[in-house]
C-alpha cells in the first residue's frame, strides 16, 4: 500500500496521548540540582558590582558568573558579540549575569532576590529610530548588523519618468512563539570522563553542540546533545536552547552534579527571542494610466541587543519583499539594527511575514487608489512562466501564482462577496463587514547556497530482524516529521510504517542532516530519507538477487544480509538541484530550490461600538508540490493561520523600558478557538522533482498570508487603510479618529 498521500496516524501520537513521551521536565533524574538565572534589571549600562546578601543562607548553592566560564565567554553564531553571561556591561533587560543552582527548587527565587547587582545606568536605545539616529553606538560604527540591497531594472530612471509616486509605510510588531512547552534543559558534566551530556527541548541538536564547545572549551567528541520530546518551537528553539544548554552546563561543570533548568512562562516570555519588528516604506512609480513603473522598498528590522540570527532573518525578509510579482524595476534596501532590547530571533516565516505584509498591503492600497479591485491589479503583475522575481530568478515553469489566485477568487466568490459586504455596510448601524486577500510565495529550504554549505547527510540502516531505522538530526516538535519521514521510508522500501523506526536525535548517534528550520525538513531532508532508502534497497536487492514480497520476506533477506555481509546501511548527502545559481554578493539568482504559492482570503465583521473583529471565514489556497499526509499538512496550515490571525489582530508585545510588560498569557493575547473560524484549507499539487515524492516545504507558508489578508479585509470594512499589525481595537480607534 502506498502511504505517501494518506493520513497515516502520527508515529509518536500514542506516546504523547498516553503520557509515555518524555519531555525534558519528565526525565527521571537522581541527585540533581535545579538551576536559575539572575538577570539584568536595566536595559543598558555597566555592572559595577555583584554581591551576595550576607543575610541569606548560601550553603549548598552553586554560583556561576562570567569568571567561571572555562572556555570563551561568547555565543558563537554569525557574530561573536554576545556573551553567555554578562561580565562588565549589560546590553538589554533580562540579560543573564549570575547562575544559581540548589537542590531545593523552592529556595531559588528567593536566593535570586538576594543577589545584589549595582549598575551605572546608560541611556538605552529602545527603538529603530533611536538606533538609526546613533543615540548610542551599540554595534560597530552604525548599529547595523546587516544591510542588503536588491536591484532589478533601472529604478531611478523609472521614477524620473513617473507621472506620480504612491508611498506608504507599513509596520509589524514583535510576536511570541508561544510554544506550549517552555524552554528546558538538563546537563550532566562527567568530570572523570571529561564528557558533557545535554538533553532538552530543542530544534537543532547540532547547533547546541556547536555552541557549547567553545564556551565549555571542549572538543566536539566530548559533548553529546540529545533532543527530548519537544512541545512546540516555531523557531523559538532554534538558537535560544544553546544559551540555556550552556547555562545548565556551566552549573553542572562547577557543581559536579546534573543540573536541570526549566523556565517558567514569565521568564520564557521576557528572556527568549521573538519575531523581529519591521517597518517598511514602499514607493511606487506610476505612469499616467496607473501602470506600475517601479517599486522602491525600504525595510528596517529591530534585531535587539545582539546579532544572533538577524542577518539571515533579514535576508529571507528581503528576498520575499518583492512578493510573487514581476516588476520590471524594483529595488529593495533593508537593514537590521541594534537596540537595547532582548535579541529577536527565529520565528516561523523568518522575516518573510513582515515584508510580505508590506507588499501585499501596498498592492491593496494601490488598487484602492487606482479604483481597481484588489485581485485585478495583482493579476496584471503576478509572475508568469519565464518571468523573473525581484531578485532576478527566472521562475521557468515553476510558477503557480496566477492559477492559485484565480482559483481562490473563483471558489470564495470573492467579487460577489465584496459587493455583498459593501451593500451590508450601507445599511448597518453597528457593524461593518469586509473581505480581503493576500497572494504570496514562500521559498523552502536554506537561502541561496545555504543548503550546499549545510552539506546535510543522513543514514538509514536495516536491523537483522527487518526494521528500517532513520538516523537524522531533524527533530519532531509537534509538526509531524516522525510520521512523514516514516511514510517516505515505508513507501521507498515497500514496507508498512510499523517497520520503520526513527532514531532519537542524539549527536553521538545521528549524522548532521541540518537544522529543523526553514520548511526544509520534509522537502530537503525527506528527499535524503528517500535517497538513503533507495541506497539500502539497492544493496539488499543486489545481495538477494531479487526484491521482497512482503515484510516477513524482507526480514529474512535482511537477516541473510547481516549473516553473510554484515550490517546493512545506506547514506545520502545533499546535492543541489541542477542549474540553480545564486550570487550572494548582488543577491541575484535562484534564492530557493522551490517555492510554494498561495492565496489566502479572509472575511471579517467589525462591531462599531467596540471595534472588536470577528473573522467570519478564512480560506487558504496553496500549491505545495505534493501533500505527504493530508491531516498533518492541513494541521500545519490551520495552526499557522491561527498563529497568523493572532499576529494580525491581537498578539502585541508591550515593551516598557526595554522589557515585555505583558509577560503572561493573561495579557499577551493569543487567539483561542472562540476567536477563529473554521480554516478551510485547499491544496493544489504539482510535484517538485527534487522533493520526496514531489513535496515542497509548507511549514512557514501559513504565517505569511493572514496578516495582509486580514488587514485588507479590515480596510475594506472600515474604509481606512490598516497598515500596521496587530490591528487591535485600540489601534483601529486611532485610525478612525473618533472619541
Amino acid at each position: 500500500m502506498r502511504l505517501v498521500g494518506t493520513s497515516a496516524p502520527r508515529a509518536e501520537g500514542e506516546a504523547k496521548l498516553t503520557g509515555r513521551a518524555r519531555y525534558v521536565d519528565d526525565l527521571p533524574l537522581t541527585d540533581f540540582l535545579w538551576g536559575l538565572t539572575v538577570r539584568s534589571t536595566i536595559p543598558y549600562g555597566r555592572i559595577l558590582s555583584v554581591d551576595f546578601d550576607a543575610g541569606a543562607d548560601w550553603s549548598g548553592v552553586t554560583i556561576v558568573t562570567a569568571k567561571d566560564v572555562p572556555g570563551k565567554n561568547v555565543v558563537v553564531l554569525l557574530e561573536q558579540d554576545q556573551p553567555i553571561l554578562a561580565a562588565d556591561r549589560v546590553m538589554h533587560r533580562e540579560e543573564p549575569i549570575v547562575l544559581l543552582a540548589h537542590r531545593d527548587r523552592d529556595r531559588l527565587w528567593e536566593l535570586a532576590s538576594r543577589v545584589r547587582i549595582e549598575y551605572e545606568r546608560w541611556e538605552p536605545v529602545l527603538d529603530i529610530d533611536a538606533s538609526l539616529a546613533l543615540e548610542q553606538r551599540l554595534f560597530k560604527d552604525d548599529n547595523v548588523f546587516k544591510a542588503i540591497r536588491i536591484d532589478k531594472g533601472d529604478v531611478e530612471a523609472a521614477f524620473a519618468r513617473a507621472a506620480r509616486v504612491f508611498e506608504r509605510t507599513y509596520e509589524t510588531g514583535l510576536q511570541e512563539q508561544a510554544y506550549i512547552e517552555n524552554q528546558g534543559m538538563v546537563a550532566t558534566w562527567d568530570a572523570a570522563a571529561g564528557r558533557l551530556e545535554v538533553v532538552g527541548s530543542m530544534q537543532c541538536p547540532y547547533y547546541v553542540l556547536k555552541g557549547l564547545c567553545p564556551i565549555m572549551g571542549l572538543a566536539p567528541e566530548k559533548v553529546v546533545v540529545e533532543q527530548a520530546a519537544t512541545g512546540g518551537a516555531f523557531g523559538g528553539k532554534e538558537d535560544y536552547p544553546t544559551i540555556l544548554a550552556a547555562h545548565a552546563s556551566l552549573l553542572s561543570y562547577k557543581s559536579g552534579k546534573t543540573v536541570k533548568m526549566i523556565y517558567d512562562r514569565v521568564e520564557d516570555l521576557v528572556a527568549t527571542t521573538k519575531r523581529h519588528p519591521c517597518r517598511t516604506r514602499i514607493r511606487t512609480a506610476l505612469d499616467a494610466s496607473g501602470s506600475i513603473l517601479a517599486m522602491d522598498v525600504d525595510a528596517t528590522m529591530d534585531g535587539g541587543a545582539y546579532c544572533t540570527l538577524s542577518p539571515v532573518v533579514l535576508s529571507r525578509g528581503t528576498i520575499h519583499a518583492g512578493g510573487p510579482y514581476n516588476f520590471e524595476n524594483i529595488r529593495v534596501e533593508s537593514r537590521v539594527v541594534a537596540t537595547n532590547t532582548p535579541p529577536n530571533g527565529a520565528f516561523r516565516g523568518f522575516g518573510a511575514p513582515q515584508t510580505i505584509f508590506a507588499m501585499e498591503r501596498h498592492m491593496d492600497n494601490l488598487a484602492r487608489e487606482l479604483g481597481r479591485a484588489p485581485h485585478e491589479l495583482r493579476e496584471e503583475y503576478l509572475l508568469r512562466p519565464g518571468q523573473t522575481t525581484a531578485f532576478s530568478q527566472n521562475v521557468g515553469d515553476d510558477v503557480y501564482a496566477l492559477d492559485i489566485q484565480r482559483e481562490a477568487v473563483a471558489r470564495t466568490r470573492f467579487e460577489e462577496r465584496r459587493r455583498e459586504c459593501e451593500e451590508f455596510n450601507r445599511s448597518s448601524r453597528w457593524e461593518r463587514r469586509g473581505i480581503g486577500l493576500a497572494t504570496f510565495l514562500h521559498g523552502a529550504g536554506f537561502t541561496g547556497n545555504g543548503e550546499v554549505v549545510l552539506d546535510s547527510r543522513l543514514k538509514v540502516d536495516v536491523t537483522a530482524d527487518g526494521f528500517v531505522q532513520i538516523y537524522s538530526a531533524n527533530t519532531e516538535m509537534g509538526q509531524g516529521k516522525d510520521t512523514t519521514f516514516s511514510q517516505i521510508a515505508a513507501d521507498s522500501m515497500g514496507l508498512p510504517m510499523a517497520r520503520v523506526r526513527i532514531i532519537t536525535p542524539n549527536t553521538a548517534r545521528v549524522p548532521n542532516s541540518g537544522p529543523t528550520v526553514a520548511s526544509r525538513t520534509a522537502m530537503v531532508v525527506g528527499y535524503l530519507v528517500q535517497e538513503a532508502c533507495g541506497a539500502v534497497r539497492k544493496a539488499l536487492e543486489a545481495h538477494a538477487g531479487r526484491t521482497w514480497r512482503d515484510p516477513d520476506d524482507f526480514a529474512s533477506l535482511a537477516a541473510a544480509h547481516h549473516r553473510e555481509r554484515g550490517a546493512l546501511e545506506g547514506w545520502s548527502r545533499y546535492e543541489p538541484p541542477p542549474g540553480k545559481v545564486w550570487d550572494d554578493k548582488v543577491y541575484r539568482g535562484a534564492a530557493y530550490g522551490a517555492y510554494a504559492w498561495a492565496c489566502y482570503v479572509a472575511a471579517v465583521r467589525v462591531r462599531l461600538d467596540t471595534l472588536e473583529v470577528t473573522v467570519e471565514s478564512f480560506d487558504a489556497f496553496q500549491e505545495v508540490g505534493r501533500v505527504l499526509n493530508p491531516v498533518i499538512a492541513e494541521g500545519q496550515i490551520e495552526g499557522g493561520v491561527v498563529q497568523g490571525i493572532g499576529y494580525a489582530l491581537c498578539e502585541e508585545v508591550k515593551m516598557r523600558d526595554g522589557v515585555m510588560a505583558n509577560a503572561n498569557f493573561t495579557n499577551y493575547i493569543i487567539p483561542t478557538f472562540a476567536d477563529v473560524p473554521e480554516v478551510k484549507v485547499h491544496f493544489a499539487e504539482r510535484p517538485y522533482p527534487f522533493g520526496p515524492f514531489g513535496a515542497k516545504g509548507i511549514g512557514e507558508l501559513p504565517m505569511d498570508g493572514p496578516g495582509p489578508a486580514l488587514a485588507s479585509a479590515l480596510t475594506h470594512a472600515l474604509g481606512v487603510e490598516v497598515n500596521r499589525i496587530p490591528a487591535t481595537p485600540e489601534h483601529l480607534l486611532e485610525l478612525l479618529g473618533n472619541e
Partner: protein
Amino acid sequence: MRARLAGFSLERPGTLDEALGMLAASKERLTLLAGGTDLYVYLNAGVARPGRWLDLWGLDELRGIHEVGDHVVLGALTTYTELRASELIRGALPLLAQAAATVGAVAIQNRGTLGGNIANGSPAGDSLPPLLAYDAEIGLRSARGRRFVPFDRFYTGYRASVAAPDELIEQIRIPLGAGSSSRACRFVKVGTRAAQAISKVVAAFVLGRAGDGTVDHCRAAFGSVAPTPVRLRRLEQHVIGKRIDPALIRTSSDVLLSEIAPIDDIRSTARYRRFVARTAWQRFMEEVPGL
C-alpha cells in the same frame, strides 16, 4: 512556582464558627482561600502573601442560592457554574448569569466564586457591575456578628474594602425586584479576546420607564474605568424623569464621560475605554425595547 511554599500553611476549618474563631484569635492577618483561581495565580507569580491560609471551600454554610423574603441570598462560595445554572438567577437576575458565563472558561467557572471576585476587588471583576446595578448588599460575618454593607460602599479604594481583618464575606443579598423583567437591562463585557479574557471595560445597565415613557429607574455600573467598580450616579440622575430620545442619549453620554476616569495600562488605553464606555451606553439606550 515562584512562591516558596515553606512559608505557607493551610488550615481547614470544619464549620463556619470554627473559621470565625480562627479569624478572631489570630494576630496576623489570615488569607481566606475560596476557589483559589486568583490566589493560585499569585502563588505561581511569587506575589502571594506568605503565612496562614484558611481554606473555606468545605464550608457548606457559605453555599447556596435562596429566595429569602423579598431578597435573593447567595452564599459567598457560589460558583459561576452555579450562577449560570440557577433558574432563580437566570429569571430574576439575568445580568449575573450572563456575567458568569463570560468568566474565564469552564474550569474557572467551576472553581471561581462570587465572594472571591468581590474580595479580590479587581476593578475588572465581571460579576461586580451587575451586583452594583442590582443594589446588592454584602453580608460580612465575624465572631462579633453579621453586618450588611451596600455594595457601592464596600470598596474604599483600589483593592481596598471596609471588611475588617476578622471578617469574611458570608453572603450577597439582592432585592428580588432589582432585575424585574419590566425593566430593560444589559450586560456588556469588552474583553481582550472572545473567551478567557479579562475585561477592558465591563458594564451593567438597568432601566425602567413609567407609563408615560419617562425613565423612573436607572442603574449604570462600570468596571475597568476607575480604581474600583463604579455606579455612575450623575448619569443615572440625568436620565431620571426624562424621555429617551437622541438628545438625551447625547447629553447623557457627555455626563457619562465626565464621570469616569479610565487609565492606560497593559490591557488597553484610556481613550479606548472611554470610547467603549460611551458606545456601550449609547447602543443600550438606542436599543431599549419599545422605543
